[in-house]
């Protein structure tokens, strides 16, 4: 497999997206808020939009090079593009969709469990089936690069988990350079070998999901990865700990070192909730009012005034949490990351 090389500048409304990226036989997911230029980036790789400058190549094949004035047409680039909302041809059957670009369909239809739907129109399919048709269509021409734009966004929450696991297995099996963009860090972490965070036109951090969660480069990355990010001032505390006096009042202890203006990073799944301050090993207890409760499958996301906690629905029911009530949020000093504040 030949690697995809991207080095480009794409003008956006309020900034230019500057990106250098090398994708080998792996899945790289780029995560960013809407408007970060994620779709434009994929369109640039596919040749549907022209970057201001830079180069895009696939192994020895140069697809775009502003210096050499190379700009291959989309139909001359070997990409498989899975569009957001899938963009299936509504007037063609599943089989006709998959074979639109040529190539054989039977193996793909079998692999993606679409054989029984070969004659169906896209309008008759479920979200998950449509996604599989879009992937089969993108793969039918045996592309050198696979591009996926928010492949999970059009799915119901209850089919998401299974579909994600299937897509993960398929991407491993293909071992193609695959570039995936999403606004959802969880999807990125579940599907990709490496995750990149896009913010204000730059690639903030690129690494495994574990790296990004464990040592986020900046508060932006931490927030995108789903963390609570609280601002405060750090000072040394006894026993090698750091105490951070939060701008909101309470003090948080961290095992990380830090001083001066500091951002405190705590993941919601590291925060536990109780009715009263528990007698456990956690050093940090913050008493706060519940703002809202959102069920997420077997978990519940509990938004407090400044913190967000993720607990099991079992715990949420046992504690009988209601918005407006006050609870104690606890987390260990070892679960707190400190980042220099701005």
């Amino acid at each position, binding site marked *: 497999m030949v690697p995809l090389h991207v080095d480009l500048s794409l003008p956006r409304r309020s900034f230019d997206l500057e990106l250098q990226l090398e994708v080998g036989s792996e899945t790289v997911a780029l995560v960013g808020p809407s408007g970060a230029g994620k779709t434009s980036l994929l369109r640039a790789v596919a040749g*549907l939009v022209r970057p201001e400058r830079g180069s895009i190549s696939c192994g020895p094949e140069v697809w775009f090079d502003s210096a050499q004035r190379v700009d291959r047409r989309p*139909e001359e*680039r070997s990409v498989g593009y899975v*569009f957001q909302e899938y963009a299936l*041809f*509504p007037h063609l059957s599943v089989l006709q969709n998959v074979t639109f670009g040529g190539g054989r369909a039977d193996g793909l239809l079998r692999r993606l469990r679409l054989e029984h739907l070969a*004659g*169906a129109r896209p*309008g008759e*399919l479920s979200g998950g089936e449509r996604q599989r048709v879009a992937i089969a269509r993108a793969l039918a021409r045996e592309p050198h690069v696979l591009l996926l734009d928010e492949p999970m966004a059009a799915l119901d929450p209850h089919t998401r988990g299974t579909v994600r696991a299937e897509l993960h297995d398929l991407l491993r099996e293909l071992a193609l350079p695959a570039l995936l963009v999403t606004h959802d860090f969880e999807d990125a972490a579940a599907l990709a070998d490496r995750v990149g965070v896009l913010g204000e036109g730059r690639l903030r951090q690129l690494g495994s999901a574990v790296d990004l969660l464990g040592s986020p480069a900046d508060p932006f990355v931490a927030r995108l990865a789903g963390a609570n990010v609280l601002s405060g001032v750090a000072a040394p505390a006894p026993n090698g700990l750091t105490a951070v006096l939060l701008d909101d009042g309470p003090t948080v202890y961290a095992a990380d070192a830090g001083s001066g203006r500091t951002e405190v990073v705590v993941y919601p799944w590291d925060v536990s909730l109780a009715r009263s301050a528990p007698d456990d090993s956690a050093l940090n207890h913050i008493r706060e009012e519940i703002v809202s409760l959102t069920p997420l499958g077997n978990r519940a996301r509990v938004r407090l005034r400044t913190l967000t906690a993720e607990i099991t629905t079992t715990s949420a029911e046992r504690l009988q949490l209601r918005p407006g009530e006050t609870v104690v949020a606890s987390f260990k000093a070892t679960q707190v990351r400190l980042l220099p504040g701005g």
Partner: protein
Amino acid sequence: MRKVFAAFLAASTAIALGFLVLPVAAIFVRVPPGDLLGALGHHVTRDALLVSLKTSAIAHACVLLVGTPAAYVLARRRFPGRGVVLTLVELPLVLPPAVAGIALFAAFGRAGLLGDQLDALGIQIPFTQAAVVLAVAFVESPFYVRGAIAAFEAVDQTLLDAARTLGARPARVFARVALPLAAGGLGAASALALARGLGEFGATIIFAGSLQGVTQTLPLAVYAQFEQDFDTALAISALFIVVGAMLLVALKLYPWFRFTSIFRSRVVPST
């Protein structure tokens, strides 16, 4: 107060309906259906019918053939002056047909803009069947092109992009994706343009005259027969009403056909 307003609404609706339906109904009341069919056999009617069918078919084919790709370009490409071009395309819509006839004269007549060139080629257009075709095409094409632009604009650009990433060259994108997806709107625009072309009167009578068997189309025959043989005029008018009604019904039924076709091709139900 509410009752007064309700009565006002009911009266307005009744007057509007009566005003629109009465003249149409009168045509069928004036002459029994049997006589209408008889009048259609009249030589003036037959000649006019043949001229109308022939000129409309040629004009309509030209409009579809040239208008469809032109509408695709105007719908898809963004270029400076696009707004001006779109306005120019629609200009004939708001012109009185008689002005269109004069305009055609000014362009293709003997003393017209292209008169010398056409003369040198030995081509004379005014008062020939070619003039009827030009008049019909000129008057109906904005109806088609306008509708076709809207139909192509309604096609999701992402689908065209998807086709290109699947290796389709522009001609294939047009034929396999844009054209079939715009088919509904193109059909509707085509039907409206055809109806407008069949009814063309003003531009034709000025630019092509009203020669029976040569340039006298059905609407011109209605006018010609109006003073000589009112029953024949009525018969032709009745024919127009029937054809027009059929066209409208077909347009109204079209979405229903489309809807049912979605369920046509299911081979095995998904379980």
